[in-house]
Structure formats: structure tokens, C-alpha cells
């Protein structure tokens, strides 16, 4: 089925399967592998994207329901030359190990900082509690983002 949406600032017209998830459309249909598939149940946040101003698990969004939506994935936040502040903070602060959860954390944290540039430690923990990291114990991620919040 034909879908028109705005993806990372560009208007796109794409063909999606009737039962396809947004995650599958991004990864397999549009060549954007940054959003990761780790659980397909909305439990781990590895596939987090921002859709119409809300952070959502793209594995739980039906691609067919994104017609007319405005979607930002990790690829839309920064690139090698111009990192988003959250991306730079995680690289510098030891917030990255295996990195599989990282794109989801980047999108979720960028979304948090957009609405609250100086989150408290508890606010950071709560806002990112839908994103699972198995490597860092969250310490490196927390310090990175506390630094960005000026704490």
C-alpha cells in the first residue's frame, strides 16, 4: 500500500506491506538500519523513533498507520560530521559498549532533552526506563546525559 510521510525532514512516498511494522519498513524497505530489532514487543526501546512528537517503539507501529506522519529516526539526528549533542555526549561519556541499544537511547534521550534541557537524574532514569541496555549497567549513559544536562 502507498504511504506518504515525512521521514528525517524529507517527504517520502513509499510502498509498505499491509501487515508490515514501521521498524521493518525502515530497516528492510528504506535502508535505514539504525533502528534496531531486539524484541519486537515494545519492551526494549532499541527501535525507538519520534513520530509526531512522541517517542514510540517502531516495532509496535503499523507502517500503514504512518501515512501523513512526521518521523525522525537516529539517522535524522546527526551524522559523522555533525553529531547531535546526545550522540557526542554518549561517545565521550562511556555511554556506548556493544551499541545495539544505542540508537534507541539516542532518539529517546534527544526527545527528552528537547522538552527538558536540564533533566534531573531521576528524570533521566525515568524517561529512559523503556530502553534496555545489557552492557553498561546504565552508569556510562547516565553520566553522559547528566553532563549534557549540566549536572
Amino acid at each position, binding site marked *: 500500500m502507498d504511504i506518504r510521510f515525512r521521514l528525517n525532514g524529507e517527504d517520502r512516498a513509499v510502498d509498505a506491506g499491509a501487515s508490515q511494522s514501521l521498524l521493518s519498513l525502515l530497516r528492510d524497505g528504506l535502508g535505514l538500519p539504525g533502528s534496531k530489532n531486539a524484541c519486537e514487543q515494545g519492551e526494549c526501546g532499541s527501535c525507538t523513533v519520534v513520530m509526531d512528537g512522541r517517542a514510540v517503539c517502531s516495532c509496535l507501529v503499523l507502517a500503514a498507520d504512518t501515512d501523513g506522519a512526521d518521523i525522525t529516526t537516529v539517522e535524522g539526528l546527526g551524522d559523522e560530521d555533525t553529531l547531535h549533542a546526545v550522540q557526542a555526549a554518549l561517545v565521550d561519556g562511556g555511554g556506548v*559498549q*556493544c551499541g545495539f541499544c544505542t540508537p534507541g537511547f539516542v532518539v529517546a534521550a534527544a526527545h527528552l532533552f528537547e522538552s527538558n534541557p536540564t533533566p534531573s537524574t531521576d528524570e533521566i532514569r525515568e524517561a529512559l526506563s523503556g530502553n534496555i541496555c545489557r552492557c*553498561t549497567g546504565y552508569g556510562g549513559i547516565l553520566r553522559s546525559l547528566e553532563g549534557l544536562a549540566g549536572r
Partner: protein
Amino acid sequence: MTTTTGTRIRGGIGESVKRPDGIPKVIGNFAYASDLAADGMLWGATLRSPYARARVVRLDPAAALAIPGVQAILTQDDVPGRKTFGQITADQPVLVDGEARFWGEPAAVVAADDPETARLAVAAIDVEWEELEPLVDMEEALGRDEVFRYAPVRRGDPDATGTVVVEGYYEVGMQDQAPLGTEAGLAIPDGEGGVDLWVTSQWTHEDHDQIWRSLDLAPDQVRQHPTGIGGAFGAREDMSLHIHVCLLALRTGRPVKMVYNREESFPGHVHRHPARMWYRHEADADGTLVKVEAKIILDGGAYMDTTPAVVGNAVYFTTGPYRVDSVQVDGYGVRTNNPPTGAMRGFGVVQVCFAHESQMDRLAEALGMDPLELRKHNALTTGDPLPTTGQIIETPLPTVGVIEQLAAIPLPPPLDSDDPRRLPGGTGLTTTPDYVTRGVGYAVSLKNIAFSEAFDDFAEARVVLSPSGVEVHTAAVEVGQGMVTVLQQIARTALGVEQVAIVPTDTSEIGSAGSTSASRQTQMAGGAVLEAARAVRDLALEQAGGDDLTSDGVWRAGELVMTLDELCADGPISHHTRFRHPPTEEPDENGQGDLHADFAVAAHRAVVDVDAELGLVRVVQVDTAQDVGLVLNPQSVRGQIEGGILQGVGLAVMEELVLDRGIILNASFTDYLLPTFLDAPEVEMALIEEPSPWGPFGAKGMGEPPTISSTPAVVAAIRNATGLELNRVPIRPQDITGT
């Protein structure tokens, strides 16, 4: 005299150097195995056994093969070479050989044009199973002599007696590594009968050595390449879809990709061994340990995998880091129809540490002694024999040091908040501070580093110096822990040249670097890189008649005498090395011998808040002191310690695969609980740097100890808060409430 380039080079050892893969990972273009693609690629999918034990009555792929877009369906009959695989013993059929022996065992594999078609084809395979009675109880398995390995220890006087005796029985549930990235691989036929494979792995050469045998190819016709891996923790030490995806690629002549979904991933890799352990400690009235007796059973699941080595670790670290003259242990790894178990961070030592530390606390209570004083009184140190094997410990072993430095870390302030994010049960608003009791507990652990028991453990590396800088070639696998950063730092410091790249190297280009496990790559791959880098530096200095090497070239008496361009005019200067740690022995019939290459100690203190009425626990803080030999990268060390502790906390209070007749009931991230950001404790740490005799610059492997004693420390803290015995992990709410 050679000038020591030492630590003055930028990006050398001791700095929190940034990861070379950090930026690709934060912008989302780091290529994991599941991200790979090739022109004309097919997708694989797997038919699995729905029972823990079942006979295949009928398996007919004809109807499924007729679905448009289905290119191949393969069963065990289609395996051209060795029909089985396995790291220690090839006892697992590549695909079910008539009888499935665990839930989720692969029975057939499909290649189709797209993933949906592949899944549909799996569902369309005409298969009939006859369920058989599964063997799921590890004691029953032992009774039937279904034993992968029996390992005894008989040391000292078995009739020795103490004045105080403490007996205990302990259980450990089945923990899953739950790496965020699932099993994934891409196989591409080379057009000449061979195949190239990119797959989630911790040890490419070991996999390769099994794969070519089953494919009936020559070793050089199969090349296994490193690829991005979304975490491992032991789950990639044994193979998953490796042979399947190669079989499909060779059969179809097209690239084939397979990616397990989360439900498949749970039975798709080995887990931590569940354990049942019976312990008896005897001590003199002053607390001196006299004898430790133990019987340990580990559930090895359906196939052997690394169970024998895990049993060895459990048995040889039965007592923990304490002097005991008499040790009598019987350890068993048994075969059941439960999901296969194998490597997970801590590798057998996690289970016994929970038991021996529980015993030490109970002994302290029986003696009326402070639990830390009891541990210090018996602390094992350099020059002592390992109480199980008799091996004299030559590496620095600051057992007292880790205990004292841990105890010196200030305790957190009392609970002073009614913010639900800081209360047991969290934002569920389930409790108030009035119902919360705080507890504090300690635990200490001893772990071997690298492979033991006479294993020929080596790592290869090649260091190449050219005008553009240094290349390090190694097959050592980066799984997220930061090895690539540390290898760069070692090479920079050893050579004096800043520009260092770690080059992904496939199995045909260099020999094995061994597994990324057993806390070994910093010492093993790191040792190889150091040795090769020093050789290259010596060659460069000799060629130019200099006394120092930098990124500019070779220097003599403070003057540049040869640039890198001039130095490498006839080609790069390189050195290839195979690094081995000091040899180890096989145990004799009593488990005696020099079985281990190196040791490390760590101690943990947990602080918990518990609502005993509701059975809710919040782990407030877990502090640690650990001997790391030398800190090569402070940020990486901290990251390994914090991540390892949280996995230990997970085992203590939430992580368990729940089985019914061998079937995993919670094979999803909805039902297998993992610690979230709100579950993560604060962590304060003291790092002790007592140099390893053979680690690079004295560094010790340090990835596993954080996971080992953190679990019993949390349990001890919950016991302290509740007064309960708590002889099983994970501790569930009902274990606290008794309802």
C-alpha cells in the same frame, strides 16, 4: 639506551581513550550481523521442536517447497559432512536427527525470497511429532548416570573436623545472557564451492573448525569474518545458525541471511547452568576454616557445549578466596532435556560463589564473628596453595586489600525520600518508606583468567608499521566490551606511534586469537599485540640505528634520523606472533595440579531497601573493590564493572528462564525480566592495581568478577534486611513473603 616511549604518547595506556566504533554506533550506521545484506539475498528461517523431547514421525517439506518464493528446505539428511557439531564433543546434530532433545531444537531450515515467505514456509512444513517423556530433573539425570563430566577434588585430610559446622543447600536458576542483538548471519557462496560467513560469534576460528567439517569442504573453502555483535556474555561461545545458513547458501547458490527473533534467540543459544549445591563448612572456634565439603550438580541441558569446562570452574573455585587445608568436592555436569547451557559471564564460578559466600555469612553468624573479619582471617593470598587444586598462587592476590578497600567506601545515606522512583516497587506506587527496611551485605570472589586445565590457549596478532601508521591484524572478536580500544592503546604505547587501526581479519588471514571469554582478551590478544608491537619497534630501531620511535620516525640522541617514509621504503615493517600464557596442567584423579594461568579477586557490598510484606526489593547501591592488575582504560574498566554488576543484580532478584517440562515459559522480553534504568544501583568502586605476571603492562582481565560476587552480596543484603534464609537465586517476591 632505549628511550621509553611509555605512557607519554597520546591515546596510550591509562587514558580513557574514546572507542573507535563509538561514532558509527551513535549515528546508527555501525554494521551488525543483522544489518548485513547482499545482492540477490534470500532469507532463512527455522522449524523448531515444540517439545523438549520428541520423535519425528513425519517431516515432509513438499507442500512448503511448492510455495512461490521458497528456494530450499533442508533437513539433517542434507548435511553433507559431519552430521554433528560441538565445541568439546560434537554431540549435537546439525538438525534434528529423528529425536529432538530440547525445546526449540532446529529440525529444518528454509530459504525464501523474503522473511515473510520463509516464515510461512516453516509453518507449512508437514511435520508430526510424538512427544516423549523428557528428563528435566538434574538429580534424576545424575541418578541415571547421564553425566557430561564428573570432577572430584580430594585434598587434605577428609576426616579433619572443626568445632563449628555449617551446612547449607543452595540453588541457582537458569539465567539468560539476553544480549540485545539476537543471533544473525549472512553466508555468501564464493562461486567456487566455498562460502564466506559473517555471523555473531565470540570465537571465529573455533566455529570455522566445526563448520567446514559439516559442510564437507576443505578448511580454506570456508572463511568466517568478524562482524558487528550486539553483546555476547557467553551466548556466542557456542554456535547457533552458523552451519544452517551456510548449507542454505551452498544449496541455493545465493547469499542467505538468517536473523533469530527474540523468541528463537532464547532457545537459540546456551544459558547459565542452573545449579544445586550442598555445602558443609567446618571451622575452629577462632574462625580458621578446617574443611569444606561440597556436592555440586550443574544442569548441562541437552548437549555438552562447554559444560565440562564450566564444571571444572565450579569445582576448582568451590571454596572462594579462602585458605582451607581439607577440601572434598564432587562436581557433576548432567545431561537433561532442558535448554542447553554453556558459557555465561562468570562461567561456573557464579554458582559456587553464591553458595560459598552464603556459607561464610552463616559461619560468621555461628561463630559470632563479623563476616568481613572471618573472610580476612582466612583470606587467600600470594604464595598460598589454591585450596582445591594445591596450585601455589604466584599472581598478586590482594584478597584482604579488596575487602578493606571496599569497606572503606562510605555507605549511602538512609532512605530519605518518598519519591516512588527511589522505593521498592518503583512507580507502581506500591509502598511507602514506613514499610521499607534497609539491608547491607558483602561477598568476595576468586576467578581464573583465560583457559585452564592444559588447554593450548593462544592468541595471534600481526602488527604492521607503514608510513600511514600501524595496522593490528587479529581475529579477536570485539563484542562491545572495548577490546578494540585497549588493543589500540597497547600498540600505541609499545610502538610510540599514534596512528593505530585494528583491522577486521577473517579466519583465512591469521590464526586464532581464542575466544572473547574467560576475561581473557585483554591479557591474550593484548599480550599478542604487545609482543608483536615490541618486535616491530625493535626492528625499526635496528634498521635505522635509532633509540626511539615516534609517529615522525626513528630518533637517535634526540634527533630524527629516519622518517616513517624512509624507514618503510622497502615495504612495511611487520611482525606476526602467537602469544601463549604460562602452560597449565590437567587435573589428576584428585583434581590436583597447576590448572590455572592467572587469578583475580573482587569484593562487593550491596545496599538494599526491602518491603518484606510485599516481597519488593530495590537495590540501592552496589560498591566494589577489584584487582584489575593495571587500569588500561579507566572509562572501559568502569563500564565493565557497572555492566557486570547489573547482570549480577539481575540474577539476584529477577532474571530466570522459567521451565515447564523443559519448555521455556518466558521466552520474551515481556516475561524475562531485565534490569532497567530504574533498577540500576549506584556504584562506587576502588580499583587495586597489583600487576599480573604476564598481562600486558601488568593488566588483568576484569570482565567477569563484577558479575560473580555482586549476586551473593545482594542476597546477603536482603537476608540482612529480612532475616530470611534465602537459599535460592533469583529471589522472587514469594521467597520473601512466603506466600
